[in-house]
């Protein structure tokens, strides 16, 4: 048994190497090809040779997959024009080669603001391409475990996917904490209260709310296992499904809209000891959700 290897601490390239079967990764548009951002140099900002995203193909437990990994250290994983085009190209390729899944290690603050409209368009193009892949019955799996979380347009993209896998440390949301605080005030959301931020946007809350399908420990082999279990597991993309999801969201707002803290939400959900949730292991959370409150609680 190997010692856990923190998914959060790995670079995008390392994540790809550790998630796939050893030695099977073939990169598309690798750094030596220098398909770089046309915008950053104009602004006097250094670009990255891969524009902050690694894409390619490989196998996971012997099954062919396409994979993308965003590098959170470069521009906060921001989606620029080239970055987005690489994601779109990978998703379109899935329609041709029909992999067992498209895996996306999402770590991004959303649109790369330096590239403004080009980044916004890129995000919408990624969504459209992702939905085409889903419509073709190929599952798209989001793996979220980086320190930067998955926010803005990338949060929207993540929730378009068939499955979302998160670690406890991971965060996913639309507007980030600082954005909410600056637009609605510190009383609404104190972005410096790390515990509050993680309770509200973190993997555990997302899991309890049903926005994240699988909660895993911050261990790359746990992510690998979760991804392997989801190969070939596509979810039907139908109008009825979408309408049902709207109903769920409306009910969520009605039921929890007045809660000031995620802990209030958990309490109202029937979690016996909401104050203990933040200290629970990922495996215990599964029990909590299926209503089998553990005796140790």
């Amino acid at each position, binding site marked *: 048994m190997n010692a856990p290897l923190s998914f959060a601490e790995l*670079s*995008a*390239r390392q994540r790809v190497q550790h998630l796939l079967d050893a030695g099977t990764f073939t990169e598309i548009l*690798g*750094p*030596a090809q220098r398909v770089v951002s046309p915008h950053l*140099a104009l602004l*006097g*900002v*250094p*670009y*990255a*040779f*891969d524009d*902050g995203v690694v894409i390619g193909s490989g196998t996971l437990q012997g099954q062919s997959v396409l994979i993308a990994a965003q*590098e959170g*250290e*470069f521009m906060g994983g921001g989606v620029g024009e080239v970055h987005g085009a690489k994601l779109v190209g990978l998703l379109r390729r899935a329609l041709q080669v029909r992999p067992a899944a498209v895996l996306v290690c999402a770590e991004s603050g959303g649109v790369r603001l330096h590239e403004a409209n080009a980044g916004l368009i890129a995000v919408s193009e990624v969504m459209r391409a992702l939905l085409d892949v889903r419509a073709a019955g190929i599952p798209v799996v989001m793996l979220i475990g980086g320190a930067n979380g998955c926010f803005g347009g990338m949060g929207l993209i993540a929730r378009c996917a068939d499955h979302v896998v998160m670690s406890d440390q991971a965060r996913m949301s639309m507007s980030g904490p600082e954005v909410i605080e600056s637009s609605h005030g510190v009383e609404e959301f104190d972005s410096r209260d790390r515990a509050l931020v993680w309770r509200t946007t973190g993997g555990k809350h997302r899991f309890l709310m049903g926005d994240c399908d699988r909660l895993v420990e911050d261990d790359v082999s746990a992510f690998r296992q979760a991804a392997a279990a989801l190969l070939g597991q596509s979810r039907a993309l139908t109008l009825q499904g979408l309408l049902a999801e709207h109903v769920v969201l409306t009910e969520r707002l009605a039921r929890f809209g007045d809660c000031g803290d995620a802990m209030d939400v958990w309490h109202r959900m029937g979690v016996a000891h909401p104050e203990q949730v933040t200290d629970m292991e990922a495996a215990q959370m599964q029990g909590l959700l299926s209503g089998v409150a553990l005796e140790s609680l």
Partner: protein
Amino acid sequence: MEHLTYQLTGHKALPAFGAVLVGVVGSGNLEVLMEQGTDPAHCTFSINTSARGFGPIWEAVVQNFQARHQLAGVAVSINDMGATPAVVSLRLDQAAASLPSGGAA
């Protein structure tokens, strides 16, 4: 942003190798791409850095690297987001260690 280039002689020829990339263009960090160069007698450096005015320090760092490694026929490309000279040296060494024959000093 500032663009700097250096061309330093070296005598250690390497067998054919695929491009090597280490590091990330993050705050205080850099990426180093080592590829086969077109000039068999030199190691070339092409640097994009966010910090202007540090040419002499970059020159000292790449000269120090080349004095230790003596690479020939290698093209080094760097995208830098304000890494300190020590970090640059470590990244260069890390990339060199990934080259065939180890690139050891």
